[in-house]
């Protein structure tokens, strides 16, 4: 997708949000200039975002097409999807298993699945990181983490 097309699409996306914000602001009561209501400033913000998005969209209808920086094939989508999946699972697993097993698993998965490292590096690195981070956060900073089913 070229940059012009990207700009058109993103402008429409923000325009949609601007409309939603404006409608919600009107429902909140915009008030008057003498006595601005709680929807006044959001309406102003929404209108500005809408106008700017529209201007950006119109500007890109007659723009010069520029090639996007990276082609589709050069992006490692697997890395991004796997990383996001691990990140989204983290709070859930932290609640379920507690700090130590979750942290260890977190490092094992990232070190093994993104740019696969040798198992010795994966386990050694994950164990050292877990021990170090446990001492930093639990003992030094005294942050309370959930106690999981292992009781740690």
């Amino acid at each position, binding site marked *: 997708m070229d*940059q012009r097309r*990207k*700009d058109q699409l*993103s402008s429409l996306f*923000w325009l949609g*949000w*601007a409309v939603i*914000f404006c409608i*919600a602001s009107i429902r*909140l009561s915009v008030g*008057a*200039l*003498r*006595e*601005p*209501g*709680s*929807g*006044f*400033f*959001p309406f102003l*913000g*929404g209108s*500005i*975002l809408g106008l*700017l*998005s529209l*201007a*950006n969209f119109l*500007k890109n209808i007659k723009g010069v097409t520029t090639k996007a920086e*990276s082609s589709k094939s*050069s*992006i*490692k989508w697997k*890395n*991004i999807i796997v*990383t*996001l999946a691990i*990140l*989204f699972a*983290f*709070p*859930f697993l*932290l*609640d379920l298993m507690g700090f130590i097993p979750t*942290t260890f698993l*977190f*490092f094992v998965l*990232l*070190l093994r699945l*993104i*740019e696969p490292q040798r198992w010795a590096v994966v386990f050694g690195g994950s164990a050292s*990181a877990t021990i170090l*981070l446990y001492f930093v*956060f639990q003992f030094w*900073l*005294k*942050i*309370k*983490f959930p106690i999981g089913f292992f009781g740690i």
Partner: protein
Amino acid sequence: MGFFDNVIYGFAIAFQPLNILYCFAGVLVGTLTGVLPGFGPVAAIALLLPITFGISPVSAIILLSGIYYGAMYGGSTTSILVNIPGEAASVITCIEGYPMAKQGRAGPALGISAFGSLIGGTFSIIGLMVVAPPLSEFALKFGPPEFFTLMLLGLTIVTYVSSGPILKALMMAALGLLLGMVGVDTISGFPRFTMGIRYLLDGIPLVPLVMGIFGISEVLLNLEKTVRVEVYEKNVKNLLPTWNDWSNSIRPIFRGTLIGFFLGLLPGAGPIIASFTSYAVEKRVHKHPEKFGTGMIEGIAGPETANNAAAQSAFIPLLTLGIPATPAIAILLGAFIIHGLRPGPLLISQKPDLFWGVVASMYLGNAMLLVLNLPLIGMWVRVVLVPYVYLFPVILFLCLIGSYSIENNPGDVYLMLIFGIVGYLMKKFRYEGAPLILAFILCPLLENALRQSLIMSQGEFIIFAERPICLVALAASGFLLLTAIFPWFKARRPTVGIRE
């Protein structure tokens, strides 16, 4: 108390053992942040913010400020050695620094960069001590209209200097304002845009937003490709610049100090613009401007001095007016508020221990940074060489725990991840995060100032034209927007990628 009594009082606070420790921790993390590409001071300050909740406000601000100005030192290391700027204010250092490293002169380049930073930073702190107290007294006369227009000017400057089209930067500023309005309206008490979610009643929390937009998104972007770092000179020697290097650098350092100090004062300008301006000035005044780009030490001395001078003077609008000059300073404003402090004209008189203690700690921090960045340069070279595959899990983990530990709420983590994806898409579609964050933080202050101004004037916008400071700030904002929009000016607009 007189000026010198205050200075001595400040040093007495800064030299308390615990504050020395926090200052050292701050500048150490700051240097590390500067050295690591893709992890700027904004994310680092946001990350460490939750761990400061248990310490005194003075120590907390000493620590967080150290990260900010420490990053200015560290940023030059990667610019010179690997041609990758550690943070945005060191982008310009690549142009002369990397060619110098290729010629085997990385040592003097790093040396002059550290000495220039020390000189610029130190003079700027003196300026901060001299200028801030009278300015805050003067600012006591400001009313809501003045604050509103000054904040508007700050926001305009940030969007003006953002990379890419100004329309997109303005869109992000507008979006930041809208996100800042989520939660209970402080004046009417009505919830706004909360969609019935209780979690959002207090508004969108700052730390998950910043860490998502600046931390998570940057890691995702880096994971798209395999990052290979090549260091030209692994054993950096001869760090002390020669007499010839000094004679070539002393004038750029002097000019860089002045440029940095005055540009740092402008809300929105900050270290990035200062370093770019300094480079442009050095190139213009040099007898052989055509040699720039081939490894001219003047092109390092000036900008590196300027960015550090600006990093220190950027505290002046924050401490005297409560207006953050850069996104990183905006996070510091958030830190002040979380610690129950309200930066502004009354801060110096009401919290002299905080003002003088933090300012005095900056001297100490600058001296520590010189030691960290010269004799210990080998350590930072080793950090640069750590493969990204080992670094990114640690960065992600710190973001996760940083977000989680604010209130032990998984909701904060999910929110951070959502903003991480938004930030990643923003980068893919070339939208800047800096205007969004600054607008988000300024939003409550802007809204209150605007509402109070309109109530004062009974709904007449003319109030902004009747006050000289408002008029100047509005005229400056209007001028900047015009220069960015109209084609004749557009070609002359300096664009800088703000990736703090």
